[in-house]
């Protein structure tokens, strides 16, 4: 009884040793075939956006969804803007790619980038989406508002004042 336990232990120790030797041999013989081997190379470029609020503050940590040209429903990639409100991705084919950036608080921007057959990117017009908040817009808005209320007051008051 006692001996058979010892024997079994020795057998199992022998099997473990054999397995370790085989594993080691495999490692040395085929370094490239390792499941955990990772290689990194430097890349540059990509397509992307920088998103800022109208006061110039970057929209940091906002959720980004990228939609491939042939699949407008299901996101092809999801990510997040960095501290400076930037996000980059790498289109894998030609066509119009759509990026949607959403800060989760009701602010969102959607932009499209068109990749042509030469790999060149064409972004939809920046001026289209940019609003000027200069003094002229403020003055224009105030003018409209007071104008509307002025006309409203004029038309409301008129019939209600029969002169004696």
């Amino acid at each position, binding site marked *: 009884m006692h001996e058979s336990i010892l024997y079994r232990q020795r057998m199992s120790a022998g099997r473990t040793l054999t397995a370790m030797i085989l594993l080691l041999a495999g490692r040395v013989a085929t370094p490239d075939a390792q499941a955990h081997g990772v290689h990194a190379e430097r890349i540059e470029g990509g397509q992307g956006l920088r998103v800022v609020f109208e006061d110039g503050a970057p929209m940091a940590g906002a959720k980004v969804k990228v939609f491939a040209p042939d699949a407008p429903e299901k996101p092809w990639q999801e990510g997040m803007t960095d501290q400076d409100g930037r996000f980059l991705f790498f289109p894998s084919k030609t066509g119009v790619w759509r990026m949607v950036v959403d800060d989760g608080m009701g*602010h969102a921007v959607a932009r499209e980038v068109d990749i042509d057959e030469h790999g060149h990117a064409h972004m939809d017009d920046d001026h289209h989406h940019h609003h000027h908040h200069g003094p002229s*817009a403020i003055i224009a*808005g105030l003018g409209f*508002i007071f104008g509307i*209320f002025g006309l409203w007051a004029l038309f409301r008051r008129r019939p209600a004042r029969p002169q004696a």
Partner: protein
Amino acid sequence: MHISDGILSTPILIGGACVAAAGVAQGLRKIEDNDIPKTALLTAAFFVASLVHVRIGPTSAHLILNGMAGILLGWAAFPALLIGLLFQALLFGHGGISVLGVNTVAIAVPAVGAGLMFRRMVHRETSPRRIALMAGLGAGLCIAATALFSAAVLALSGRAWLRTAWVLLVAHVFVMAGEAVLAYFIAAYLLRVRPALLLGRPLAA
């Protein structure tokens, strides 16, 4: 607190537009001739206030002034805020045209609520200090209610309600405090120069 175009689902946009239309109709019915200049002034103030920004960490919040509008205008805040939002969308790109109804509801419902609450609380109050404090409290709570309302609308289009509400509330803590202080001073000033504008009656009976 402007929700942008393309975030909400169509039924919510339509629902928001319907509620906003009802609120605006009620506001137009309630408004009196003599209130029109006051309404114009608050619309203008609301329109410009959105350009005053408060930055907290990664978020960016701006003054809203809807509480003040509700306290001074009551139901007339509905058409006033709609017009203000329309020009913010057209000229500044805040929010958008398709979300105009929803944004109006999210901003005007708390405003009218704050206004009605304020009127009820100061019904027989004669202490200018206490009235001004209530105006400040009303304006502050109005921002919190607006944040919760916006979060609820976003949640109806599939967002996590609690998280969105929390983020919006935290982002608006300083706006809340700022508007409460501002409303306190505006109310205190109006009580000195023209109490009827704030209370709809003279200060002392």
